[in-house]
């Protein structure tokens, strides 16, 4: 599914300078713990979270995540939005809860992020 269709499914307000229909989103990962995102979220996954600080965008940047969705009607901090814009990472805002967003996207066919296997020590 592309990000434009996805935004429609969750009634999202979009903050982005890039064309959402060009961005393919096969997987998503929902989490408020950035360390868990860094551990378990596969590259290319959409990040769904209720945290809105600048480190969310940093985390997305580190993992090459295509976009970030802020749930529960949270309004991101200004620095969060500007870092996202600088890096061409679209930000989606939705009033739905994390659970509702997950449900809607899962029903629409967005797959879970695969969990990278722990490496041999």
């Amino acid at each position, binding site marked *: 599914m592309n990000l434009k269709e996805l935004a429609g499914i969750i009634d999202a307000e979009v903050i982005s300078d890039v064309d959402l229909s060009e961005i393919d989103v096969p997987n998503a990962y929902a989490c408020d713990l950035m360390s868990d995102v860094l551990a378990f979220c596969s590259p290319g996954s959409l990040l769904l979270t209720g945290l809105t600080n600048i480190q969310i965008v940093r985390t997305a940047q580190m993992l090459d995540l295509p976009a970030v969705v802020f749930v529960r009607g949270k309004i991101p901090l200004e620095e969060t939005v500007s870092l996202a814009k600088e890096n061409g990472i679209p930000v989606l805002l939705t009033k739905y809860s994390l659970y509702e967003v997950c449900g809607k996207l899962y029903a629409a066919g967005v797959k879970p992020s695969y969990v990278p296997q722990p490496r041999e*020590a």
Partner: protein
Amino acid sequence: MAAPVCLEYRIEGNNFMTAGTASNNIKNTLKMLGIQSEVCRRAAVIAYEAEINLVIHANGGILKAVISEDRLEITAKDEGPGIPDIEQAMTEGYTTASNQAREMGFGAGMGLPNIKRNSDLFEIESTPGEGTMLKSTVFFNK
């Protein structure tokens, strides 16, 4: 590749606004050098977790990346409080992070285990009261 590429950053303690900038530079440099994306991702996670640790726990420190022909070596060195029990600190879920760090989404006790998991070689040395030295190596052709 000729001489190794050496990147060194002074990381400011407790500054969550700039945290991640150095790691992003390291990641972008690797990409520019044409290093495969899976390796870049692992390197980014290692650098970022190490950088966040310097910000959260150590009142800052030095983050260094040396990129040579076959490997990347990331070193994080600080003069922070040190880690009394490294084995405990390496346990998933164990954390001593502040509330501020937790509110930012960190302090889940995953940082050091994440670094180790993504490293090919991992070393950590710490002396309470003196500081911590973490070294992680990622090979490019593995």
